[in-house]
């Protein structure tokens, strides 16, 4: 037996050159918009972000925010810009939601008009940038890449590479009756590709809309049986950013589903601005990717906002799924209710970090946070950290975290009623997951997801 000595790749010099490679990814993506006014707007936004990227480093586990999430595997892959491969509509059929009459489809981050379908009353906008009526052009710059947190390295990387934007714009006083489905498809390929989808939602005052933001790998989800082995090799990197602006008294119900290939990398930012009296609900389901990170950031810009955050992570194998949420309350009378659950099997590793800031002005805030974890194997791991910073003195804030395993006695109880051990375990895991999945306002999607949860 011989012992091989490998050079230490963690030497500073090596790391920085790998960093540069990943951080130069934005340069490969060109603007996919025709309208000259928008092109110059995008170019300005991209240039600013590129400057930020050039001054940034890829975080390491020495950074507190990335303590448990090691990005070296991501850095070691040589990603290419996506080629223009496109699935056909028939292949997408099983992913379409009967409840959602409108959908925008992006393939590897590029708008696919022939796969999209929009059936919405006049005045409601769901399109890519080119489809945006000229009257809105000047307004875009008030919103796009304007939320705090835009300096974060992966958000800046996405911004520096904006090629197009999925836009949903709901005018004042309009209630959109049917959900809008935003599908971001990655197509499997032999060369690792990167796609950086961007989404902007503006809900004007008193408007209401239901959105489903859906990330998946075409092959894994469509022809699972036959192509499973092949898809196992499908390495790609999705770096997504979604910004949602809720004006006064607006309401947005947002479902975010990440079901990327098991070898994929997914880093996603969901940034929300909530004006006074607005109501925002996010139900985030994380199922896929070898390494995923969801940064969920809510900024309250006025009083009496309501924020409901539901999260479910179900991972197995060697998956790592990290959710970092930040809720910044700066005004009085806000309420927030957060429940994040993780189901972790095999040697998988889930991370939850939930920050809630309640500074002095945010009096009468009512905030609750609960993180519950179910470990299905002795090697499964969860790192959880509720982080409440409260300086206001007249508020109600509660938080808690639990870690448990499937209870043998519960399994036996179900077996003694005739269920076999597998069905019994499935029923218990499903019940744990259902509490979150049932919050999704789309029955067909609830059904699909509950089936996915089975062990």
């Amino acid at each position, binding site marked *: 037996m011989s012992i091989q000595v490998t050079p230490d790749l963690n030497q500073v010099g090596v790391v920085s050159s790998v960093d540069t490679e990943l951080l130069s990814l934005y340069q490969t993506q060109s603007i996919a918009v025709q309208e000259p006014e928008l092109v110059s707007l995008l170019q300005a936004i991209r240039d600013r972000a590129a400057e930020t990227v050039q001054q940034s480093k890829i975080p390491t586990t020495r950074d507190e925010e990335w303590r448990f999430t090691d990005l070296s595997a991501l850095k070691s892959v040589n990603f290419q810009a996506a080629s223009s491969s496109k699935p056909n509509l028939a292949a997408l059929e099983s992913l379409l939601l009967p409840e959602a009459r409108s959908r925008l489809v992006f393939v590897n981050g590029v708008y696919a008009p022939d796969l999209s379908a929009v059936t919405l009353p006049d005045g409601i906008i769901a399109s890519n940038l080119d489809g945006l009526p000229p009257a809105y052009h000047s307004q875009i710059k008030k919103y796009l890449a304007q939320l705090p947190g835009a300096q974060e390295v992966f958000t800046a990387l996405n911004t520096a590479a904006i090629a197009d934007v999925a836009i949903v714009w709901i005018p004042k006083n309009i209630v959109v009756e049917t959900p809008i489905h935003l599908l971001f498809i990655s197509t499997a390929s032999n060369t690792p590709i990167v796609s950086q989808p961007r989404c902007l939602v503006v809900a004007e005052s008193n408007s209401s809309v239901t959105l489903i933001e859906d990330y998946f790998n075409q092959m894994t989800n469509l022809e699972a049986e036959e192509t499973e082995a092949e898809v196992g090799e499908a390495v790609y990197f999705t770096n997504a950013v979604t910004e949602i602006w809720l004006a006064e008294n607006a309401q947005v119900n947002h479902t975010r589903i990440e079901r990327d290939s098991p070898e994929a990398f997914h880093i996603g930012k969901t940034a929300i601005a909530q004006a006074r009296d607005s109501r925002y609900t996010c139900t985030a389901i994380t199922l896929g990717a070898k390494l995923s990170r969801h940064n969920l950031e809510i900024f309250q810009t006025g009083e009496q906002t309501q924020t409901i955050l539901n999260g479910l992570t179900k991972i197995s194998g060697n998956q790592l799924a990290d959710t970092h949420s930040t809720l910044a309350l700066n005004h009085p009378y806000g309420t927030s209710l957060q429940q994040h659950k993780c189901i972790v099997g095999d040697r998988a590793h889930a991370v939850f970090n939930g920050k809630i800031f309640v500074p002095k002005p945010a009096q009468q805030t009512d905030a609750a946070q609960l993180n519950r974890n179910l470990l299905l194997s002795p090697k499964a791991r969860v790192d959880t950290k509720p982080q409440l910073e409260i300086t206001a003195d007249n508020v109600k804030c509660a938080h808690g975290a639990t870690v448990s395993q499937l*209870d*043998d*006695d*519960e399994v*036996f*109880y*179900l*077996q*003694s*009623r*005739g*269920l*076999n*051990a597998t*069905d*019994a375990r499935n*029923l*218990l895991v*499903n*019940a*744990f997951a*259902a*509490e979150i999945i049932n919050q999704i306002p789309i029955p067909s999607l609830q059904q699909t997801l509950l089936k996915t949860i089975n062990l």
Partner: protein
Amino acid sequence: MIVENSGTVLSVRDLTAEVEGTPILKGVNLEIKAGEIHAIMGPNGSGKSTFSKVLAGHPAYKVTGGEVIFQGNNLLEMEPEERAQSGVFMAFQYPLEIPGVTNLDFLRVAYNSRRKVQGLEELDAFDFDEIVQEKLEVVKMNPTFLNRSVNEGFSGGEKKRNEILQMALLEPKLAILDETDSGLDIDALKIVANGVNQLATPDNAILLITHYQRLLNYIVPDFVHVMADGRVITSGGKELALELESRGYDWVLEENVSEVGAK
């Protein structure tokens, strides 16, 4: 009731079992025929609850010897769910709470698993609802319980009634009621006992495991067995229970220790 020439439902011979290496059952013998109601009484730690769990197939208990024949089949070779599917039912001393699963769904899954084995078509939610509404009467249960999570937030009495409701739906050949009476007030006890009496037929058998004679005023057993130190040390008719109530367990223990010693 004792039925002439009825078939044997359960036959236990020299059953020994241990938990984490500690012997608990040290040679249990018991014969139950169709139509009969048996009661096993005994002081705490005598092994009565272990006996019921071994019969139901709890994985924490290891059978080390003896045999258990249920309707001609070797019960000990069967998985817990196979025992349930073939007609063994145990009402739990501490029914578990299952948050997130509605009682109705749970009952339907259990009901259908039994039907599947019987070669019958599984019932959908609609057809099942009709059946369950009817069975609710047996334990005087409010239909709103069906839409709550299994046993979650139920009172002690409600949990035990829910167990009997499951028994009513599953129509077992052998029902083992593990301390179903403990912790119940008299009103709840009457409802539970009345439910069990309605479910007793000449074709099935009931095994009551209890610490208190009080239950036997409402469910009258055909046979009473006293268990101590992992064995059935004496058996008799229902009058044995009354004697135990008035004299306690000590006299049985003393008499039988000398008897065992004499053997």
